[in-house]
């Protein structure tokens, strides 16, 4: 078992775990985004997907153990390596730093994706905690939300301005994180080839942008108004945003203020 210990303790082994768990979490992002995109297909498609997923308890348990396990390992090693890396510089830091990578000029504050992984990672961790409270543990949900179907639930959570802002920022931060992380994982796992690496790096950046836009798009999603026409649950809790229950009128009321609806999830 010493090889297992070495995996978690040697510098290269730690990067294997970091890269492996990172790629697994990237895979999860893809599945998650694909599922979420069904929101655009309407309540029926999304609800049947969500219900099917939740009926399969065994799959759900395995997936959740895998996800939480990967996340915890990823975060644990982030702490370990970050503190080792800080210590490795020694007591005195440079008074001046400049990148030598052609086309990149960084300072110590280095605001490039690859130099801010720890910061973006920490932000994502905070976001995931909130996201789980919103959707999984439903900490802030009122009775109406608890009783609502998955589609309406999503609409209710996303109707709050605070959530719109936080979810949009989080989507961008996740995009930045994976734009370096995806390609970096390949390098850490030794999967580098002069011929394919430029492609992997491009895919990584495209993936980052896709994640940011894909997840970020849901804050502009008008499901709240659309489902308002069909679901009495939303009607009760956020009547002010729905001046009319007629589908046509609801679509017309595009500038419906989101502020009153903010009170729906008590954040």
């Amino acid at each position, binding site marked *: 078992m010493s*090889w297992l210990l070495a995996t978690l303790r040697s510098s290269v082994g730690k990067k294997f775990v970091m890269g492996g768990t990172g790629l697994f979490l990237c895979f999860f992002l893809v599945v998650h985004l694909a599922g979420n995109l069904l929101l655009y297909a309407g309540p029926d498609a999304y609800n049947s997907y969500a219900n099917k997923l939740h009926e399969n308890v065994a799959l759900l348990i395995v997936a959740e153990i895998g996800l939480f396990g990967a996340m915890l390992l990823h975060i644990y090693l982030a702490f370990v390596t970050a503190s080792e890396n800080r210590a490795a510089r020694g007591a005195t830091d440079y008074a001046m*730093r400049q990148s030598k990578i052609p086309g990149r000029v960084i300072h110590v504050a280095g605001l490039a994706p690859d130099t801010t992984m720890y910061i973006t990672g920490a932000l994502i961790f905070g976001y995931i905690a909130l996201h789980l409270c919103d959707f999984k543990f439903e900490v802030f949900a009122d009775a109406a939300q608890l009783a609502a179907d998955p589609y309406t639930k999503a609409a209710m959570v996303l109707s709050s301005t605070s959530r719109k802002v936080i979810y949009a920022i989080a989507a961008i931060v996740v995009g930045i994180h994976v734009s370096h992380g995806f390609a*970096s994982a390949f390098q850490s796992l030794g999967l580098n080839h002069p011929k394919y690496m430029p492609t992997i790096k491009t895919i990584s950046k495209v993936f980052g942008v896709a994640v940011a836009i894909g997840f970020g798009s849901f804050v502009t999603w008008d499901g709240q108004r659309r489902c308002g026409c069909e679901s009495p649950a939303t009607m009760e809790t956020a009547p002010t945003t729905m001046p009319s229950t007629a589908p046509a009128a609801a679509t017309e009321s595009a500038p419906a203020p989101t502020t009153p609806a903010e009170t729906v999830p008590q954040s």
Partner: protein
Amino acid sequence: MSHSTTGKTLNLKLRVWRQKDNASRGEFRDYALVGISTEMSFLEMLDILNEQLLQQGEEPVNFDHDCREGICGTCSLMINGQAHGPDNGTTTCQLHMRRFHDGQMITIEPWRAKAFPVIRDLVVDRSAFDRIIQAGGYVSVRTGQAPEANSVPISKNDQESALDAAVCIGCGACVASCKNASAMLFVAAKVSHLAQLPQGAPERAARVLGMVGQMDSEEFGNCTNTSECEAACPAGVSVTHIARLNREYAKALYGSPLGLKGELLTSSGTGGD
């Protein structure tokens, strides 16, 4: 001291790190230099500074140098926050003063890493690299006389890639420029060089486990794939070799008796914690 040989000369302000020894606290000291020829190398400029300091009865600035032609890897300065100065693929000794402009302020610092303690001023102790080499960066077979060159066939790709790694001069700029002070590029250069040649193949598992173990116990940082090392490396060693090091490590750790039994790992591989 007529050091302005040709037309163009520079007046410079230098901020130099001065530190008596490892136990003392260091500090920046400012110096002014007048009439530095643009034809001079950076180290020649420092020679002028030291002559000036000696004349003033001050202790000269200590800095490492030897070949002064870019092959030994002894020179090592962080110049305005860049390892070996602003040029890519260049050692400090090959850097010329024409890269600077009149009146410029130049900040000169030693390599900064816990594993490279300052000995004096700009000189750091890089023997951590020697200990990493001793942990496996060699081929320990008796080769006897030089064999017939064509009796050991090596493909052109392997040979070129091995030599691309072998060009490492062990200067430590990779460590100095890395935000994590990681020595991965140096170790990768050595491992990748020998792993691709038949002479190095028999010991490849022991080599990579031993060298990574020693690197970790010297308390260098972990690689986060920012590629600053590659940009700072005067020999142009590519981070592709780091990926090969990672592959070698995986093969050795999970696919060799040494790795599976945990030899070479427990003694040094877990050091530093």
